[in-house]
């Protein structure tokens, strides 16, 4: 898949993560190029979050990880934070902090220890809030937001960090249909307009296949089970093997649609509501 013209943004070679003797990730290798979107999929516990953590430098790993050609270990924290932004799956929400302040935390790598955010920083924050439909929440305490509002605020913080590489761990899990699309389209636009590189995990395989350039399927054993374009990865066989789920895979308008074959046994379909059972 290597292409001489393309610049490597993130490259992982034989990356393994072990914790107290348990192997969470096993020899994962892949390469993501500038301006690409890689979607990591896999069942619960496959190691998706662990892989993102390893790429972000938050989990100790063996093997080699290079960010824009530099080994991860050679980047100091500040440089790293100017290259990679990370949206954790379960972010810590600080008590009493207002949304603007929280989003401004994304400017941390650009500020000296004793420096305050400048007006320019505030402006970046405001623009990002507007892009994510969050202007009305700027002065609210983050902990009072609804689940979906909060998730967008965390994404806003990562975008404010203004990095070429963005790692998103299930960024749309709490979002409604409309906001899901808005956010993913915004990310897509960032790739198109600013050449960002995105690595995300997602459980909605249809969306994952649609938005990402390539998919990487992690199996339950923490190994790469499949890697490539959506039609190649999102096969009924792959999915039934690794997800333990029956699905039908179809292609609509060029998008691979993964639809679960849902329960027929004890449910009388649309004959609802059930009467006096």
């Amino acid at each position: 898949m290597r292409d001489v013209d393309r610049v490597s943004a993130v490259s992982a070679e034989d990356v393994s993560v072990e914790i107290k003797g348990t192997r969470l990730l096993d020899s994962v290798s892949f390469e993501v190029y500038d301006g690409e979107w890689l979607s990591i999929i896999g069942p619960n516990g496959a190691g998706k979050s662990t892989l993102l953590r390893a790429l972000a430098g938050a989990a100790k790993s063996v093997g080699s990880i290079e960010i824009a050609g530099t080994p991860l270990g050679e980047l100091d924290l500040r440089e790293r934070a100017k290259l990679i932004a990370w949206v954790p799956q379960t972010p810590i929400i600080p008590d009493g902090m207002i949304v603007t302040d929280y989003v401004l935390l994304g400017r941390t790598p650009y500020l000296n220890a004793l420096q305050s955010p400048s007006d320019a920083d505030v402006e970046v924050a405001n623009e990002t809030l507007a892009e994510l439909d969050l202007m009305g929440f700027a002065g609210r305490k983050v902990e009072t937001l609804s689940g979906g509002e909060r998730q967008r605020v965390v994404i806003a913080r990562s975008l404010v960090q203004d990095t070429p590489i963005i790692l998103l761990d299930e960024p749309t899990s709490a979002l409604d249909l409309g906001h899901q699309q808005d956010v993913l389209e915004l990310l897509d636009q960032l790739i198109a307009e600013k050449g960002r590189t995105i690595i995300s995990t997602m459980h909605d395989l249809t969306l994952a296949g649609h938005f990402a350039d390539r998919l990487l399927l992690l199996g339950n054993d923490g190994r790469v089970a499949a890697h490539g374009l959506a039609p190649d990865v999102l096969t009924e066989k792959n999915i039934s093997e690794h997800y333990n789920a029956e699905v039908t895979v179809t292609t609509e308008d060029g998008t691979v649609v993964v639809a679960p074959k849902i329960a027929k046994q004890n449910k009388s379909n649309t004959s609802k509501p059930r009467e006096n059972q």
Partner: protein
Amino acid sequence: MNARPASIRFSWVVGGVAFVLGSIAVALVVGPTSIDRTGVIVESFDAALPFTFESNLADQQVSIVRNLRLPRVTLGLLVGSSLAVSGATFQGIFRNPLADPYLLGVAAGGGLGATIAFTNGLGDGIGAFDPVQIFAFAGALSAVFLAWIMGSAAVTRSSNSGLLSNTSRSATTLVLAGVAIASFYSALQTYLQQRNTQDLRQVYNWLLGGLNTSGWDEVSLLFPVALISIAILASTGRILDVLAVGDEEATMLGMSVTRTRLFLIVVASLLTASAVAVSGLIAFVGLIIPHTVRLLFGSSYRIIVPMSIFVGAGFLVLSDLLARTALSPTELPIGVVTAFFGAPFFVVILRTSIK
């Protein structure tokens, strides 16, 4: 651009400055001896400014203003703001409402140092190089140093063993190490004190803290450290806010959590140790002032840290005023005044400002 980060409002700053200036004025003018008010003000200007002002006060009155009240008020400002800003910093570092500047052993270390000085008969130095101050300062810093060594080495090991925990376990480890070291120092201090009960009162008196024996020597010792440290800490509110998202996320935001914590602890401990060296252990201020500020003005450390400086300074000057006038000629231990008046006030704020 309607979204603005939480920050100090201009009116709060004005209010804070007014509070501090008001406290200074009252504390200069009022005292056990009644002195003509205009004279006090004129003399204070004369002392503080490079111009000469002539007052019509008697020699001893001039001396009271210049050698007793002025240094005491100045020291009150310095110590009050030092303790409050260090307390705010420690609460931010450890995200613990019970954190205060003495948490990692500054108090116990200072106490041990001072006790060593007293029990070795070094307690009666007067002048710029008071052994008690030097020993207290050294003791305070050594305790914090030990706590850091013990607490952070443990953390390095723990983070080797795998994923970082979401919660800031390293901060908790450090706190516990600090508490253990503080207990150890206190034990040594108590032991020394018990061997030398004839010094009991002296030691006890020092432990209680106060500004009553302070002169310009103390001011000149504390002033440079306080000025620099407070200036540094005043602008660390943003860093403390970053720490609020936990060690892992803060690291991913480009902050070296361990180094930042160390830096903040070093500056705040230097400041606290200096304040402790000249004024002993003054309780309450470092713990309660930051909470008061939080309840009154908001929970961003970009607000809490600088506002604590104003409120702490004014509060301690006023407390000291009460300490020397309320039951004059009795001097009240300053810790009695801070808590006796501060605690009810704080409870009222606590009960009214819960939103």
